[in-house]
């Protein structure tokens, strides 16, 4: 893994294909938790952690268990068996990934409850909702079945880290905007989530400016 590739993954996930404003994944926690900078940072760190760990575990799961002709299938069913040829991707990708993500979220929840109880209380239901955060599932899928080319374990983990950081970056930007929005004379029908979505749209347009950066698309 050379430096250029690492930089490419970083810029791709932070800016060019940012999970929130370019791929439009994970909008629920993005809108729900971006009204306060501390909450936004907490949420960002939690999601980054879950994304990184999920990338790691799901890549191993993918490469050693689910792909056709994987180590697991060859040892259990023998090379050349029908199942070894076909792999378990079609059957198990969604359910096994969800299991991994849910467990990781549970882990983070226990950790936060023990060590950062104030953040645990502030995040409330949104912490548990990382389980169903499509950005986490998205990064797992983009690392494995939907990857344009095989990333390798390091690549997958790096993509997880930078996808999470990209999420945190946009959360923080949004929190800054929304803290100012509080003091503006927004028409009542736009107050809260609608104006936040409008800002997100504008931000997404701004992020389009990164398209083509570093030869990425």
């Amino acid at each position, binding site marked *: 893994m050379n430096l250029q590739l690492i930089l490419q993954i970083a810029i791709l996930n932070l800016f060019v294909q940012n999970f929130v404003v370019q791929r439009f994944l994970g909008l629920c926690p993005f809108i729900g938790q971006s009204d306060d900078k501390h909450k936004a940072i907490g949420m960002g760190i939690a999601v980054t952690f879950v994304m990184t760990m999920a990338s790691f575990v799901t890549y191993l*799961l993918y490469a050693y*268990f*689910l792909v056709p002709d994987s180590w*697991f*299938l060859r040892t*259990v*069913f023998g090379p050349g*068996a*029908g*199942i070894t040829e*076909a792999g*378990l991707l079609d*059957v*198990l990708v969604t*359910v*096994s990934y969800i*299991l*991994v993500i849910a*467990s990781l979220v*549970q*882990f983070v929840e*226990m*950790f936060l*409850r*023990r*060590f950062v*109880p104030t953040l645990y*209380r502030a995040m409330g239901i949104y912490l548990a909702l990382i389980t169903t955060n499509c950005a986490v599932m998205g990064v797992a899928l983009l690392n494995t079945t939907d990857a344009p080319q095989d990333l390798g374990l390091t690549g997958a983990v790096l993509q997880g880290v930078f996808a999470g950081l990209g999420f945190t970056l946009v959360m923080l930007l949004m929190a800054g905007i929304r803290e100012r929005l509080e*003091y*503006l*004379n927004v028409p009542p029908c736009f107050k809260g989530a609608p104006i936040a979505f409008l800002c997100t749209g504008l931000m997404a347009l701004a992020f389009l400016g990164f398209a083509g950066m570093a030869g990425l698309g």
Partner: protein
Amino acid sequence: MSSFIIGSLIVMAVLAMLLGIVLAVASKVFHVDVDPRIEQVDELLPGANCGGCGLAGCAAAAEKIVAGDAAPSICPVCGDDARAEIYELLGMSSEETEPHIARMLCGGGTGCKDKEEYHGVEDCRAAVLIQEGPKACHFACVGLSSCVEACPFEAIFIGDDGLPHVIEERCTACGACERVCPRGVIAVMPAKRTVWVKCQSHDKGKVVNKICKTGCIACRRCEKECPVDAIHVIDNLAVIDYEKCILCGKCAKVCPKNTIVDLRARRRAEKKAKEAEAAGKPA
């Protein structure tokens, strides 16, 4: 086909077992001892998370109460029954707590002159930042309904006189209005204080007289009238010492600007008016 089922089962079983072990270990390592009483107290609290106690919601209040850092009476919303139950649960002796209520400490409103027109954000906190606010009196209620919006129980409304009014039956004395008011002209106080000075102005009497119809002009007539020496003009404003006050309402009667409110007298008058109306109708 069966090999697919078996393969899937094995993969999921292995995965679930591994993750289960990790979570089991984590739950031991990250174990938090929670006092079961916290949950019980939390259930007895109103659960409105109004923040009236000054803490971050009822769960936080329950924690503090159980830890002994706060008395159950910090919850101003809680009914007497629930409070008594909390005392019993914690093995503490119950004590009577007096009900509180939010009251207006400014009688200006439309009777208080504007010194400029304000066209900014409809919020008192924003308005007072510009030239001390649009009112000529720098102690007066701005009337842009920050308290109305802050009230979680919809107990405050802006009346025709341009002042917030508290609906007593709805007010739970949570103090949200008091915290949000930039002028400090709405305050939570014991409900039994039926006599209070509805002015916060420390301006000289002459100034007040010019700009406000109901402001305290520091004439000291209340001071002379008071039978128990409980009201004094301090820094151009009449202040009642509730340790001494017997709530007789004599000060309210003599006040030339009607700055002092006597709730009981007002209620009596309202009752009389109603009776008179009822008597007048059939005739």
